């Protein structure tokens, strides 16, 4: 059995690991349900079921090839942006600028598709940054102009520019110390697994040991115990996934700490956004989790950080 596992490609090995973890989680839940049934487990059931579906979709897209995963990421950006703009207080005069902002999504992913890094990295921070206010000016309403220009650009940066780094990551060819090449697709698996694992572990540590809140006014559920426990345990777990990366042991741990902390701040920033809008969740797409953004919040921050780390040090 171990031999069969060793023979698998990194993608299928990862698939086996995630499948194993989810099976274990499902078994534990079933056990908890037997021991003490209650509403507490219903929520966890919904979450676990959603994890199965999300993992299934993610691996299906990875297996189906670059076009499918490109389409999946573009759709995730689109849905995240949808959730964000629906909560914004928009003016009638913003209509055309919003159309432009949504049109930027397929364009941004087209740069990924044709592997044009230079354009990928400046299109939203430079060209959309210039174009959106121009379109707003043409609508001739100055009241609320700055708020509209800022809000729309912020959404594009976080949910389109930021998340599209996950997609571009899979195009990188990372170089290891002995010149061994590492496929960007396996780095993407590493990023997503470590960040999501840390999110779950922060929740678990926080629920069991959490006492001291990190940012009580923004997110009362985030505790120091959860943060430190989650970051350390997810980073330790990441060592088992070193086969996905070109990193040494120490570096793997360091990178995992970097992206889990970035993910934590991503989650906190999105919590602040929700507080500002006065909502609990961004949407209801994923039962037990909330909206697309409630699941992607950490990745909005971790993806660019991880991408540029790999690109700077390993290509």
């Amino acid at each position: 059995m171990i031999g069969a596992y060793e023979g698998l490609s990194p993608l299928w090995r990862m698939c086996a690991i995630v499948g194993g973890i989810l099976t274990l989680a499902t078994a534990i839940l079933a056990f908890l349900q037997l021991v003490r049934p209650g509403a507490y487990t219903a929520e966890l059931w919904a979450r676990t079921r959603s994890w199965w579906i999300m993992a299934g979709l993610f691996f299906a897209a990875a297996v189906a090839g670059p076009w499918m995963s490109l389409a999946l990421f573009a759709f995730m950006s689109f849905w995240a942006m949808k959730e964000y703009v629906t909560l914004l207080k928009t003016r009638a005069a913003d209509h055309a600028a919003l159309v432009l902002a949504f049109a930027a999504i397929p364009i941004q992913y087209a740069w990924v598709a044709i592997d044009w890094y230079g354009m990928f990295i400046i299109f939203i921070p430079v060209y959309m940054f210039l174009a959106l206010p121009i379109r707003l000016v043409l609508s001739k309403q100055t009241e609320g102009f700055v708020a509209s220009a800022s809000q729309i650009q912020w959404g594009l940066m976080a949910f389109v520019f930021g998340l599209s780094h996950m997609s571009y990551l899979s195009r990188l060819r990372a170089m290891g110390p002995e010149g061994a090449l590492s496929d960007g697709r396996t780095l993407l698996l590493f990023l997503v697994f470590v960040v999501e694992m840390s999110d779950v572990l922060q929740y678990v540590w926080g629920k069991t040991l959490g006492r001291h809140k990190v940012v009580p006014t923004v997110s009362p559920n985030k505790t120091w115990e959860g943060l430190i426990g989650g970051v350390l345990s997810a980073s330790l777990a990441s060592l088992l996934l070193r086969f996905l990366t070109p990193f040494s042991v120490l570096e793997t741990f360091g990178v995992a700490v970097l992206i889990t902390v970035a993910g934590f701040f991503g989650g906190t920033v999105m919590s602040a956004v929700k507080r500002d809008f006065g909502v609990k969740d961004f949407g209801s797409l994923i039962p037990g989790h909330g909206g697309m953004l409630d699941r992607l919040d950490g990745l909005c921050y971790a993806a660019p950080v991880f991408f540029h780390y790999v690109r700077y040090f390993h290509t």
Partner: protein
Amino acid sequence: VTQKQPDEAPLSRREKGPSSRSVAPDFLQRLFFLLVVRPFLTLFIGLKVRGRENLPERGPFLLVANHSSHLDTVSLLALFPLGRLKEIRPVAAADYFERNLTVSFLTRTFFNILPIVRKREDVTPENDPRQAMVAALKAGFSLIIFPEGTRSSSPEEIGRFKSGVAYLVENVPGLPVVAAYLENMGRSLPKGAWIPVPFFCNVLIGPARTYAGTTPEIVAGIQAAVRDLRGD
């Protein structure tokens, strides 16, 4: 498919019911809803429906809603199974939706509209909009009506309801009226815009009920039913 558009049914002629709809336009409408409208509403707009169970299993009934967008009619029609589309006719202004042959062909085929004359000076005994609607209801069609008469220019506002809706209640005994509130459609595709912004949109549907009383009471009652769904 290139059949001649029938003129407005004269009062004397008996209106034919839903089963009389020709096979070709009915098929095209179903295909259009299956392949275009539903994917668009699900994947692009992210339409959420609450209270779908309130829609009567059998017509005729009136489906009444606030109006701020071209998405309104599309979303309300999409609430029904494909097989029921031919029973449901959105009441639409002839001066707008029949402004030329192409638009007229498209709106009749894909939306099965009931075109009515909106301007009072154009109304003749033959094309009286109230009579046309009553005849359609009596023939077994259910109607989608926006009693504001036009799309409101501000999506947050619900305009004053016109009295035509009460005329239908008074002249079709026991007519069930279903109120719906459409949320965010006017943000997604406001009047004057042609490309929708994918704000999440919601349809809230209230229970079917009948109305009685004086004309102003009926109008006020129906208007209140729509406003209540908004949570005013």
